């Protein structure tokens, strides 16, 4: 027989008992050619392009599920950072450059522009485009559409400033549109004006969506070194180095890895790492199979497989659970960073062997609200924001889905963003911040988001002002290792 019964049963158990699935099939779509000076024309072009490329995405995903017996949880779309298109609008081109430069160059600070002076009409154009994206996402049956984004690590364009200022309205008026803002790169340093602005914007989004536990903030990610081919949300967008259209797949499988770690309770580190690698290999191969089949059926090139461990609210599907099964009493306690470093590295090694095109974020996600055991550790005050910050220096991404008191000041939020972005900038890796200041809630309160986003406890933030630091103007210079040529 071509396969042993053990191999066949292993696959069956992974899918049926350990929750192995493809977390997302994400179609990346270039929208640069939809730019137009007239808003209505741009809306039509965007609608037409996304619809014609992705109308079969959901059905194809379902047909692959049926043919291969592998659950595919989400169908998603990423698009070109929207700020790049909207600069072509007449209304944006008429904005005075002088106001914008005040946010880019300390020399212009004499203008003392505290907040960008952007007309309601300009903001409305961004809201309308977001509504177009929201309705098309619903029409083609995808749960999220990412790319309402701005890359401002070195400075703002007019359009990027407008997009950022439109976020409080966009994220409270749309359901499926996800946004990201890149504020730092290793190559160019950190735009502290953007960091400051994002603290204020996150606070405003939280206020605008206070009726729903400030959930708008769950759809916004602040990045350092954002990647162009991330299939996961909320931080996914279709980068400008990408092709016209491609299929990226995010595989998952904390449950499968957790099972294998459980079975190696007394193993030494080499044996443990080997077994995680082998399992990650199998998981990635399955993801690659799905990605290739989807690409073929949609007549679109295959892009990458993202081999991130993405937890769900199911207890067995927990990254914290893997760490605890590795030998920690509680995730967040001493030993956590080392355990996570080893886990992430072993997953990457297995994934890299399985596919030549591993990309996206690839590593382990630690979204607190989405991981039941992570939340339990936070309730016990063993997992703290500070510990999570150190964990993010060894795994993919960053401070993800963390609820903080609604009373946290915008400058404190900016301080947390700056800390996290520094880890990314200095260590040449992607880091991100997705904080939710839940208006009306305080430390220890429980917040229910429902669905994939789970529920979470509000975590404490150290009360010490960084206002003066954040209020300095300009950019943190690029680190010494940006000079690699």
């Amino acid at each position, binding site marked *: 027989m071509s396969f042993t019964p053990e191999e066949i049963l292993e696959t069956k158990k992974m899918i049926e008992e350990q929750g192995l699935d493809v977390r997302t099939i994400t179609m990346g779509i270039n929208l640069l050619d939809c730019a137009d000076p007239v808003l209505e024309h741009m809306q039509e072009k965007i609608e037409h392009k996304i619809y014609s490329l992705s109308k079969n995405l959901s059905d194809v995903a379902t047909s692959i599920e049926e043919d*291969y017996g592998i659950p595919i949880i989400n169908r998603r779309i990423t698009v070109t950072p929207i700020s790049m298109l909207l600069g072509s609008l007449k209304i944006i081109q008429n904005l005075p450059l002088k106001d914008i430069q005040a946010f880019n160059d300390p020399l212009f600070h004499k203008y003392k522009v505290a907040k960008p002076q952007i007309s309601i009409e300009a903001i409305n154009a961004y809201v309308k485009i977001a509504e177009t994206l929201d309705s098309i996402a619903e029409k083609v049956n995808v749960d999220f559409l990412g790319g309402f984004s701005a890359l401002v690590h070195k400075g703002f364009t007019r359009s990027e400033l407008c997009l950022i200022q439109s976020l409080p309205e966009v994220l409270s008026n749309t359901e499926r549109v996800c946004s990201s803002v890149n504020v730092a790169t290793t190559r160019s340093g950190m735009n502290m004006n953007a960091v400051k602005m994002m603290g204020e914007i996150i606070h405003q989004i939280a206020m605008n969506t206070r009726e729903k536990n400030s959930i708008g903030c769950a759809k916004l990610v602040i990045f350092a070194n954002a990647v162009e081919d991330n299939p996961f949300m909320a931080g996914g967008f279709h980068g400008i180095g990408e092709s016209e259209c491609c299929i990226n797949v995010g595989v998952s499988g904390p449950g499968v890895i957790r099972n294998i770690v459980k079975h190696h309770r007394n193993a030494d580190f080499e044996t443990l790492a080997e077994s995680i690698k082998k399992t990650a290999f199998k998981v990635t191969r*399955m993801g690659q199979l799905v990605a290739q089949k989807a690409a073929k059926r949609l007549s679109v090139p295959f892009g990458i497989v993202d081999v991130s461990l993405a937890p769900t609210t199911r207890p067995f599907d927990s990254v914290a659970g893997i760490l605890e099964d590795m030998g920690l009493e509680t995730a967040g306690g001493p030993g956590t960073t080392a355990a996570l470093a080893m886990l992430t590295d072993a997953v990457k090694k297995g994934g890299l062997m399985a596919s030549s095109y591993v990309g996206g974020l690839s590593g382990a996600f630690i979204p607190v609200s989405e991981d039941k055991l992570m939340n339990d550790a936070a309730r016990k005050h063993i997992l703290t924001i500070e510990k999570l910050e150190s964990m993010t220096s060894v795994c993919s991404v960053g401070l993800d889905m963390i609820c903080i008191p609604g009373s946290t000041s915008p400058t404190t939020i900016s301080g947390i963003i700056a800390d996290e972005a520094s880890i990314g900038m200095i260590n040449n890796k992607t880091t991100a911040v997705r904080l939710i200041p839940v208006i009306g809630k305080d430390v220890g309160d429980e917040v229910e988001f429902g669905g994939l986003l789970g529920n979470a406890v509000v975590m404490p933030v150290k009360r010490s002002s960084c206002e003066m630091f954040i209020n300095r103007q300009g950019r943190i210079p690029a680190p010494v290792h940006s000079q690699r040529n």
Partner: protein
Amino acid sequence: MKAIVSVVGMDKPGIVATVSTVLADNQVNITDISQSYAQEFFTMIMVVEFDKNKVSLKELSEKLKEAGEEIGVFVSIQHEDVFRAMHRI
């Protein structure tokens, strides 16, 4: 198209007959078969071949599941590619 049928459950008379009847009724050819016991569970793996224009994997999967439920065993069918991707370099 090639697929793998797996059957897991308590051993009893008629399992092979039940499953192979469903396969024969749908013009599915069995190219390999193996049986084993893991703990007290009976496990049967079949490699099968069929024309996907005559019967779809989804239909076959539903029929096999139904037949399995009648005799109290779990029957599932999956495309061979899944196993090839996972277990072969």
